[in-house]
């Protein structure tokens, strides 16, 4: 038989496909494709959202339309791949046996379906391009390959669609797998390729029904085999990256999507197994095709959804993102014991994730959630409120033993946060410190510890993060720093000290120490307000802010003798209350590890800034950083931001910086005995 010139190319390719299909090269090729796709993704790196607990806390701000387009594109591409591979291969198997190797034509219904999914996938590519998410050349190439599949299926040699299907399968694996790295990446690639084959088998069942004749058994074999592989991949993905808390499986979009990716292929495979020779098999296979589409949609959307944070553990602080219709909240609950718990809420408007720490073009993130936010543990709703010197909003919520969730309501929209306070009562001193005026400083420490253990991959439960709040005691290092500070100031010839303290154990001890040291240095301590004296603040954050505000107000009329803050007052909400302060510190906030901590905590908790408590907890929990200096060095903290004269031009600072609109730099050699040696 004479082969027309227009069919020469397809004939050659089709011959190759024949050989491939009949000798097992096709399955081997699929495996090779999966392996190489995985290698490709591994080389360029994926997002791996679920693998990093810190990043899991970050607002991914899924855009509804973006997720919908991605789902549409991947489902339609999977359909195109599946039909191309399965229908193309079957056409070859159904070849007539004539000398020219004529292949069984693809049924009209299948062809129509192939065109439909191909065109839908092409529309998805176009949308991705129009919205700026994809490069035009890559999109055009994908559209070309996508439309090639139904085009070739409609020729006299439908088997030639198989190579195009293989190529498109690789693209599908790449696109689905960009959200993963490591083993989850391999699993997603296997899922995408096996799932596409399953999809194709189901579509064949829908489109041709009895037309397959003797090939029906082969379709079923393909479907069952591909279904089993897809099911294993889906279940493996659920085990690897599913929500850590069972609650989240059924109560979060991520959990439901992960469940769908695992369970639906199982149901589809079971359906194929039990429908052999049954009546209404066509309808069931149609249902199967819909099921596979749902599974692919779930897998596609999964990567755009926030991964639920870790499960609540009694006695351990819990930090979780909470998605509401118009804003993304971050919630911290501690000490996670029965009774009063501190709840810290921070917020950004939904979709504002692009305005992250380090993005200099963005306006400062709101440090206080807009609108009205309340929290409740089944009882009365407690409003969250601002605290002096602290970012975000705060509430003390009584959580009885046995309560497994609290409700956060913002502007009428509720969201649930799972909790587990256990039965063991909290340490009274810890609970008092956390739920008292120094709670925000303690919470800042807890966040520092949490992001550190997450960064190094340690479960929070292995590190007793909530052992003690900073305000419960004056540490030896802080005592040394204060002692050296007073001695240093006395040596600088200042006229006296205005001392600001509070009633916390640390504040009382610090004030006693300062008085004793001042007395030994003949340095008078006078009531706050003496104009030429130096203001020394050893209280917690909440008492420090009004003291600084008063000092600033006084300085407008009269020169001040300067402001010195205790080491634990290095927090942006505190130091920004005055134009200039000096602090004795045992670490340099300008060095890389301290900045890394600040950037990380700000990314995890919107509007949250670094603090001494947080950085020390970060170090204790294994976060990156140099050892603390044995003696403190004085650091100057001040705003540095040449005003340009227009409010809307003044872009503000980065909440991840120690002083978002200023700087903190060393202004002395180390003080005290150790420093004196240098």
């Amino acid at each position, binding site marked *: 038989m004479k082969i027309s010139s227009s069919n020469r190319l397809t004939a050659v390719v089709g011959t*190759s496909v024949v*050989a*491939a299909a009949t000798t097992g090269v*096709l399955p*081997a*090729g699929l495996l090779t*494709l999966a392996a*190489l796709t995985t290698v*490709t993704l591994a080389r*360029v790196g994926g997002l791996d*959202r679920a693998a990093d607990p810190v990043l899991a806390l970050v607002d*991914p701000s899924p855009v509804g339309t*973006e997720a919908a387009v991605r789902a549409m594109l991947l489902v339609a*591409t999977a359909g195109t791949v599946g039909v191309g591979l399965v229908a193309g291969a079957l056409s070859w198997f159904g070849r007539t046996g004539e000398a020219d190797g004529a292949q069984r034509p693809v049924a009209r219904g299948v062809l129509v379906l192939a065109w439909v999914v191909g065109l839908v996938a092409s529309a998805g590519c176009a949308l*991705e391009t129009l919205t700026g*998410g994809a*490069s035009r050349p*890559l999109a055009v190439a*994908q559209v070309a390959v996508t439309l090639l599949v139904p085009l070739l299926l409609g020729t006299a040699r439908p088997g030639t669609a198989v*190579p195009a299907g*293989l*190529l498109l399968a*690789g*693209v599908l694996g*790449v*696109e689905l797998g*960009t*959200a993963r790295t490591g083993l989850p990446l391999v699993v997603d690639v296997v899922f995408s390729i096996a799932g596409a084959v399953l999809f194709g088998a189901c579509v064949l069942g829908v489109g041709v029904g009895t037309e397959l004749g003797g090939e029906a058994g082969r379709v079923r074999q393909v479907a069952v085999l591909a279904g089993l592989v897809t099911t294993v991949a889906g279940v493996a993905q659920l085990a690897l990256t599913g929500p850590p808390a069972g609650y989240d499986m059924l109560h979060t979009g991520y959990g439901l999507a992960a469940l769908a990716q695992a369970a639906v292929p199982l149901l589809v495979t079971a359906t194929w197994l039990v429908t052999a020779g049954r009546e209404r098999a066509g309808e069931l296979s149609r249902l199967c095709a819909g099921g596979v589409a749902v599974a692919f949609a779930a897998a*596609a959307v999964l990567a*755009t959804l926030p991964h639920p944070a870790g499960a609540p553990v009694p006695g351990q602080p819990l930090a979780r993102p909470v998605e509401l219709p118009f804003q993304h909240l971050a919630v911290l609950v501690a000490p996670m014991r029965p009774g009063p718990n501190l709840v810290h809420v921070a917020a950004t408007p939904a979709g504002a994730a*692009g305005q*992250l*720490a380090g*993005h*200099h073009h963005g306006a400062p993130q709101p440090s206080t959630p807009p609108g009205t936010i309340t929290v409740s543990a089944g009882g009365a709703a407690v409003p969250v409120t601002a605290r002096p010197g602290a970012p975000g909003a705060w509430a003390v919520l009584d959580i009885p033993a046995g309560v497994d969730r609290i409700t956060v309501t913002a502007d009428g929209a509720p969201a649930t946060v799972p909790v587990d306070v256990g039965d063991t009562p909290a340490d009274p001193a810890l609970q008092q410190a956390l739920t008292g005026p120094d709670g925000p400083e303690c919470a800042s420490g807890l966040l520092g510890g949490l992001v550190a253990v997450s960064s190094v991959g340690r479960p929070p439960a292995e590190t007793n993060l909530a052992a003690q709040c900073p305000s419960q005691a004056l540490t030896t290092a802080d005592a040394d720093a204060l002692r050296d500070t007073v001695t240093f100031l006395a040596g600088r010839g*200042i006229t006296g000290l205005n001392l600001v303290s509070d009633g916390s154990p640390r504040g009382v001890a610090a004030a006693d120490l300062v008085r004793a040291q001042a007395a030994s240095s003949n340095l008078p301590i006078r009531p706050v307000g003496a104009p030429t004296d130096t203001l020394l603040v050893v209280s917690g954050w909440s008492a420090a802010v009004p003291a600084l505000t008063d000092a600033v107000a006084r300085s*407008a*009329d009269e*020169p001040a003798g300067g402001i010195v803050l205790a080491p634990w007052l290095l927090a942006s909400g505190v130091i920004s209350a005055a*134009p200039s302060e000096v602090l004795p510190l045992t670490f340099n906030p*300008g*060095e*890389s590890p301290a900045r*890394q901590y600040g950037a*990380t905590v700000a990314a995890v908790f919107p509007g949250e800034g670094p603090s001494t408590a947080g950085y020390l907890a970060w170090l204790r929990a294994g976060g990156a950083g140099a050892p603390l200096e044995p003696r403190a060095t004085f650091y100057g903290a*001040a705003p*540095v*931001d*040449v005003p340009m*004269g*227009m409010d809307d*031009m003044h*872009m*503000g600072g980065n909440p991840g*910086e120690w002083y978002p*609109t200023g*700087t903190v*730099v*060393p*202004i002395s050699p180390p003080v005290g005995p150790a420093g004196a040696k240098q």
Partner: protein
Amino acid sequence: MTGLLARVKRRKTVIAGLAVVAVAGGLTVLPHGGNAYADVVPTRSNFHASDGKDYWVENHLVSGLISSQHTTLSKSGHRPEYLIVWAGDSNIADTIVPDIKHLPGSLADPIQKVKNALPGPDFLAVIDATEGSPTYGKVLNTGTVGPLVENEPHHMQYVWHKGEKIYAGGLFSAATYVFDVSKLPALSLSGISLPSQTLCGSVPDAYWVLKDGTAYGTYMGGPVAPGPCRYTHGEIRSGNGFAGTPGEVVRFGEKGQNLSESPAAVATPEDPKLCLNTPSLQVPSCANPHGIQVREDLNAMVTSDYAEPRNIILDPLKNPSPYLRRPTIRTWDISDRNHPKVKSVSYLPVGPRADPKDPLHWEDRAVMETTVTNRPGHKGAFAETMQGGAIFYTSDITDPHPVWKEVFDDWAADKKFEGGGSGPGDNAGWVQTSPDDKTLYHAIVGRQKGTLGPNDPGTTGGVFALDISKLVDAGDDYDCDIKTRDDAINGGSGSDCPDVRGQDTIGNTPAGGPHWGALDNLVRGDDGYYHETDEPQRLATANYFVARTGLDGDHRVCMTDIDHDGSLSLDTDFKDEVTGQTCINFNRKDWPHGAFGYAKPHSMLFVVADEDLK
């Protein structure tokens, strides 16, 4: 027959297998761009600083490019010239999304932005500036500094001469780095001054290197702690703290050691209205020195006061006071190099277009830069204002009471930029006399939308050149004085007023122009070596100010050719090695030191290795 069929079948099998593997293999190639910096081996130069810690610059030499440059240049007997750019890590770096992320269906990735929010190192970029070199415009080395990050790299000296170290400041770290560039393209760290070594000042800005290799640096902000500060020679001035007022001038040794600190404030009060201080000072002062230039032959130095460099928006509902932008210039007696003394404090005239309702844009607002004349017979100096958008001149900086007059309003040149422009609020920056005192070069960022009101569309920027020869040659008898609005818009009517010789629009968006520039004072001689020239033939500009202020620019470094008639034109051969477009874009994902993403280039210098300069 059966054997033949079997052979055909085996061959087809092999072909099919190869086809599948080829298709799959092609996929692995498609999205991967390779790493041009795979051969970079970091080498670190340490300096043991006064705080007992090691500070460093770490070289990331791109050996492949350097080898290519060397091979080509050596064949033609040429030697390399470099553009050294002091740049900060931008921490945006969302370009670190691999190409694969641009596939349809891939995810726009906020997570990646979080990863890239982590601080990266600031660095000196060493760019090949040798015309005709195969690596012209390519980054041959990045010298990253550590352990301090986010220094906010700012200024270096204005021009580099043979044998000089490079002095480079960090606006936020308050540190001054001293780099050795004698073995370019490799760098080493000669020293560092930490803020604890300069207690009477903060916020370092600009530097001037003296003939003995030491340098003066302006520290724009006040003493690191509020209250009285005793300077090296016993003067005492009371300040309102870090980034406040008054600033100082520090003299540095070549290892960054503090040789002396000298007060920029005089002992007597300055104008309390024009010199607002927050918190208030008993002795009000405008002393926030920014620009600095020196005439050693005249034992004279000039500094210009810019602004109290702290954000004083304690009440966010109020605009910062316009009186925080300074209108003053100081001349200094530097007969004792180690003890500069303020000789005069001059208030610039407000100008003819000053609107009483808008003091922020009076011509005298924010005297950012000053530049001296250079020829032995000339004693004058120029100054420019950032918010005011005007240029001032005095004919004798040795006069105890120099008279400063407005001699040019930027408006007359800004209007010639593509899209047009005007003087007020044009965010003028770098200003520099040519070594022969014939031309004055000036960089303009341009004005943001809405600066002068809701309907203000903003203006573009660029660089322009003024003919100042008649003005400078007139000595004390010059008659240029901008007194009318018409003079402001069209140029002064005085016979010796500067004329626009050329302009080059850089950045086609409002406020998209350059803040800084540098003249190429080096020219290749017939002997193959570089020599200093009085007539530079090109200049470089950088489109970045300080991101935190909202004046961020597009982070490009451009080269502008200077023709013999003074006209300016963009060097289209100075192309970005990544994008292929004119100008070097510091918004790129990969650097020799790693995938740290966007960077902010603030200032630059033309430099050659010692062995290549005569």
